Each structure stands twice: as C-alpha cells, then as structure tokens.
C-alpha cells in the first residue's frame, strides 16, 4: 500500500543523503520525495511517498526515527490530510489544437506560464489523479515534455504536523503496539 510520510529533519547538509541512503540501503522504495526549508530555517520538511506492506512501513518509520537528524516522522496515510503535486507541461500546438489546449487548461484550472507561436508551457497543481488525467488528455495534442514534482502534504484543519506527531512519538516509545501493523488482534495467545 502507498503511504505518504512527512519527516521533519534538521536543516543540515547530508540529511537528504542519510535518508535516501537509508531507503536504498535497506531496500525500501521511494516513489517520490520532496524537501524544502520550513518556517523555521533550522528545519526542513521531507514528504516521502513510499509503498510496502504494513510491517515494512512500520520499519521505515522506525528506521527514520533512528536517524539522529530526524526530529519527527508522521505517516499521513490514515490521518485526514490534503496532498498536492505540481506539474509543468510543454505542449506543441498550432491552429485548432491551440483552442483545444486552452479549453482543457481552463477546465482543470491550470495556468499558461509561457506562450510561443509553436505552443505553451502549462502549470497545474492538484492531486495525483487530477495531474494524471490532465497529462493524459493533453498527450494526443502533442505533449513534448513533462516536469513533475513530488507530493507535498499537510493534515486538514488547524492541527500542525507537530500535534499529529504526538501519537507517533508515543508509538516510538511503546514499539509497534500502536502502529496498527503488528499482529494486534492476532496476539490472542496473550489475554489482555
């Protein structure tokens, strides 16, 4: 299953290498990864999209927590949250096709950010499905290049990642019990 994991880290050189090295060294997948400074310039936030069975995700979170430079880890999957991706699409379009492209951009509430006689560069944000649909619609019209950034994500409402993190902190203390990924009910061998 796919998980979006938000990781708050020290804003120091080498942190990205530590995290990407952890994933490659232990054989975990990264579907996408974005990183940028937060409001506090001493920290950065990484949003990592990864996939794996529950025990694997649990290990990923624990191994991330084990890194000294990692401050907080939150698995947003299972938390009510919003996610966005951004894409830049270069379309070659002339004549009637230009009209069609503009219509699609309008429907998706995209933005033309560069125009030339041969075509456009279009910017679109949205969730993954929307971006996929958009790119697929443009393809027959002449997509020349696509630049797509990884996912960024945030919990809904006023809750900060910090407060969501408390539950994760707790899990960090007590091991996998609360991760929902251990045997859980299966531990029937032991009466509660």
């Amino acid at each position, binding site marked *: 299953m796919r998980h979006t994991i938000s990781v708050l880290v020290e804003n120091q050189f080498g942190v990205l290498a530590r995290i990407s090295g952890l994933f490659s060294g232990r054989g975990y997948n990264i579907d996408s990864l974005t990183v940028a400074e937060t409001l506090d310039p001493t920290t950065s936030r990484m949003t990592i999209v990864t996939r794996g069975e529950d025990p694997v995700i649990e290990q990923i979170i*624990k191994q991330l927590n084990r890194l*000294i*430079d990692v401050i907080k880890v939150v698995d947003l999957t299972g938390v009510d949250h919003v996610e966005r991706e951004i894409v830049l699409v270069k379309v070659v379009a002339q004549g009637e096709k230009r009209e069609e492209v503009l219509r699609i951009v309008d429907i998706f509430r995209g933005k033309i950010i560069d125009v030339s006689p041969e075509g456009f560069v279009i910017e679109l944000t949205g969730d993954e499905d929307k971006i996929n649909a958009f790119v697929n619609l443009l393809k027959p019209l002449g997509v020349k290049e696509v630049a797509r950034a990884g996912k960024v994500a945030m919990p809904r409402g006023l809750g900060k990642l910090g407060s969501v993190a408390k539950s994760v902190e707790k899990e960090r203390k007590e091991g996998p019990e609360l991760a929902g990924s*251990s045997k859980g009910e299966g531990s029937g061998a*032991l009466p509660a």
Partner: protein
Amino acid sequence: MAEMTGAQIFIETLRREGVDTIFGYPGGAVLYIYDELLNSDIRHILVRHEQGAVHMAEGYAKASGKVGVALVTSGPGATNTVTGIADAYMDSVPIVVFTGQVPLPLIGNDAFQEADIVGITRPCTKHNYLVKDINDLARIIRQAFFIAKTGRPGPVLVDIPKDITIQKTEYTYPEEVRLRSYNPTVEGHMGQIKRGLRAILQSRRPIFYVGGGTVYSSAEEEVRALAEKLKVPVALTLMGLGSFPAHHPQFLGMLGMHGTYTANTTMQNADLIFAIGSRFDDRVTGRLKDFAPHASFVHVDIDPSSIGKNVITDVPIVGDIRSVLRSLWRLVEEMPKSEVAAFHKQIQPWWDQIHTWNQQHPLKYEDSEEGIKAQYVVERIYDVADENLLVTTDVGQHQMWAAQYFRSKQKKSFITSGGLGTMGFGFPAAIGAKVARPDVPVFCISGDGSFLMNMQEIGTAVQYNVPVKVAILNNFYLGMVRQWQELFYQRRYSEVVMKAMPDFSKLAEAFGAKGFTIKKKKDVVPVLKEAMKIDGPVIMDFHVLREENVYPMIPAGASLSEIVVGPPEK
C-alpha cells in the same frame, strides 16, 4: 578566556570527556593534533594498521563499558577504519573515531589523501560529522560521545579538516549536551511491563532469550535475580555470553546455529519467548517462518526498530534493559509467595522436559589421544585461568568452540565479532581489552586464518608490553569454510588451504614476543600455565586435529528443529 587552537580544543574536550587512552596512527592531516598530544597526559597507543586501532577501541569499550577512541589521518587512514566501524555498528559498540581531513578549501578537489569518509561511513555509523567551523568543534565532540554511549550504543565518526586544527577561537566547554531530535527512551512503559509479567505468569513453557543488550546495559544481576526468582530457563546469544553464570542450573547454553541442542530445542518449543536485549538474528531463529511456532513474544529493547523487525511481537517494551528489569523485579517482589510458588509448579513439567533434552544431547565432543582437539584447548584455557579471564575471539570454528565452552566469572568477559563476523577482530580487540582492564588475564582465541589478518599488531602489543595471550587453534585450514564444503559441497575443498603458513612461534619471536608451538596434547596445559606467568604478549600455536567440525549445527536456512547434534555415525 584564552584563545585555543582546534588541536588544543580537541585534546581538552577529550580530556574532559574522561578519555584516558587513544588508539591511533598519525599522518599529514592530523599533525597539529599529534603535536598537541605531546602536551597532554592522554595515553596514545600507536597501532600498526588503522583497522587495528578501531578494533582495539572496540575491545576497550566492550571490556570497560566506556567509549573507545580511535584517531587516524585522512584518506587511506580513514578508509582503513571502515571495517572496524561497520563491525562496531553491527554489534552496537560505543566508539568515537576521529579522522583527519584535507583543509576545508580543498575538500572536493581530489586532493592528496582526500576521501569522503563521512559519505563512506554514513550507512555504518550511528551518526557522523564533518566539522566545518572551529566554533562547532567542542560541541560536536561532546555530542559524538553522548550519541555513542546512550540509547543503543554505536560508532560515531568525526571528520576534522586540517585547517580547523590550527585555527583559533575562544574555548567554552559545552557543559550540557542537548539534541532535540535524539532522546532515547530509558524507562519502560509501566503498562507494557505489567503485560510482560502477566505473559510470563500465564506461560507454561517460558524461556529468557538474553542478548548483548544486557551486557551494554550492565544488567547481569537483574537478569539473574529475575530468572532465579521465577525459575525461568535462560539461554544466551553469542553476544550475550557472560551475562548469566555458565554453571547456573537454569542455564541452557548458547542459542543459534552452533548453540546447544537444549537451548535451541527449548526455544523452538516455548510458548513464551521473553527476549532481553537480543534481536532475533537469522543465526538464532533459523528459518523464520518455522521459528517457535507456538510462542508469544515479549521483547525488551532500547531500540524500537529492533522490535517487530523479524518476528511479530505481542508485548513490546522499549527501554533500557536494566531499568525495565528493575521495574519488573519490583512487580515480582510484590507478588504473594503463593503465586510465585504456583508459577514454579506450573512450569515444572517444562523443566522436566528440558532436563530430558539435556540428558539426551548434552554439549560434548569426542576427545582424542592421537592429537589435540581444538575444544580440548579451549576447555583448558578456562581451567588454567581459573575461569577468571576475558576472552576475545576472531571468526570461524574457534569462535564457536570458544563460545560453546565459555565459562568466565568476569563480567563483560566475552568479546567477539558477532554481527559483521570480522576475521582479524580478536587480536587487536584483546589488546584494547587488556589496556582497559590490566588486572584481568586476557586470552585471544583465534584461528590460523583470522590471526593472519591483523597479526601486525604483535608489534603494538610488544611496544606497550600488553600481556595478551593468543591461542591460535591452528588446523591449517580455513576451518569453517572447509566444514561447509565438507557438509554441503560434497567435500570439494576450494581455496581453504594456505600452503605457505608462517611458523607463528618464530613470527612472535621476530616481533619480540614470546612464541610457542604445541603439537602434543600433554604440552597444552604446561604451555598455557607458562604463558600465564609471562609478563608480556605470548603467541601459542596449537596444531589441532585438522578436520574437526563444530557441532551441534543448524544448517543455514533450516529450522531449529532440524538441528544436527553430531557427525553421522560411522
């Protein structure tokens, strides 16, 4: 406050950290530090190879419980430490390795003796640092020691560019170490501890599965007290040896691939495995999907990532072993006597079963009068030292024999390379251990192949007169590889014989150490006794029977129930 150079800050901060010994090797990038070392009372042990320095620091750390320190130069000096660092990472050994680096402006320029050691060691250190500002130096050193010794211990590397060591700044010692992103859980969660105890009390076939975490946490007394009070059988991992008395009636022996029949069979048939500072390594569990099919698991460990990694844990308890076991002990103390007695009665049939297993297949070997059996030498070492010794080992058959027949009354007395399995570990580790605990006899039990890998350190042992006793169990084979080839590759021996073996006794003499060659069984004990009397390093070359195999053995990838107790009947 006076200005100090980076080199002075380095020495002063180490001194305040309580460092009394550095294992090191000088070179261009650390010249200012070595110059400053002359003004200090910190003892420096000049090694013969940087790998030796790191293994000595490991031996020092494992024998003393303190942080071991190595200091080397940039480039090859740094890269030579990598095996030692990886070894310390796998076995959670608290060490700090300082490497010189080319001056900051040259980094990235492929300068002479430049290596990106921070990049190289990122996956095999607990944490590492490149110092980019002299004002960070003292803080980073403090943090390095703090990280190395707290939580699950491990190696930390600090890379110091040469220009930093000659720059000057006001020195303020950072009294407090604080890391917002690092705060290991020490106290266990009380609710979880109660659940853990309940699990024990409800079990009918419990076992304590005790590993190296117990040794690092110095929780030997706690394990013993709890085990005795509840009368639960105890089995140790390779790394846990020494944390429970070898002669104790509740001791089942070592677990794992070459562990005892009783320990492995008890584990496999248990209904409750209470894991203490151990990590369900593949060498212990055998084929995972058939491992202890009837068991529930309680797992006490300071590293949450160790819990639930290989087996699904019913009761995870994150915390320091000693602290958790003390809490558990208090709960047990509060129990009515009748309840404790009822539990003893409840597990009595389990003990009857265990005793039967032990009578059926005790740990044994067939001694020989025709030659020297390696196991015989190992047993006599423990005898001659009156079970009052530290043992280090290399990796291979000799390591397993040293472990199977291990019996020392000393704490932190079995020092071996478990996780990484580093041949060449034992001898330098013995030197480090002896430097840390000069009052206790230190034996390195080694093999002919392993010893050759770091034999250059005889020079170090001689220079500082570190009286370690090396027992090479020489079968003129790479014995463990040969054993596997015999058992699993139809005796097709491939590259397991070194046809140009040195005369180890003469080699020792060439370095200025005392050497012995022992070819007859009757000479084993007298030579060991003589070696004990010599105040200096001794290399003993025991020519043992060549094709002896280590038994019991659980073949790789097999289940614990497929344990082979001995050679096929002739």
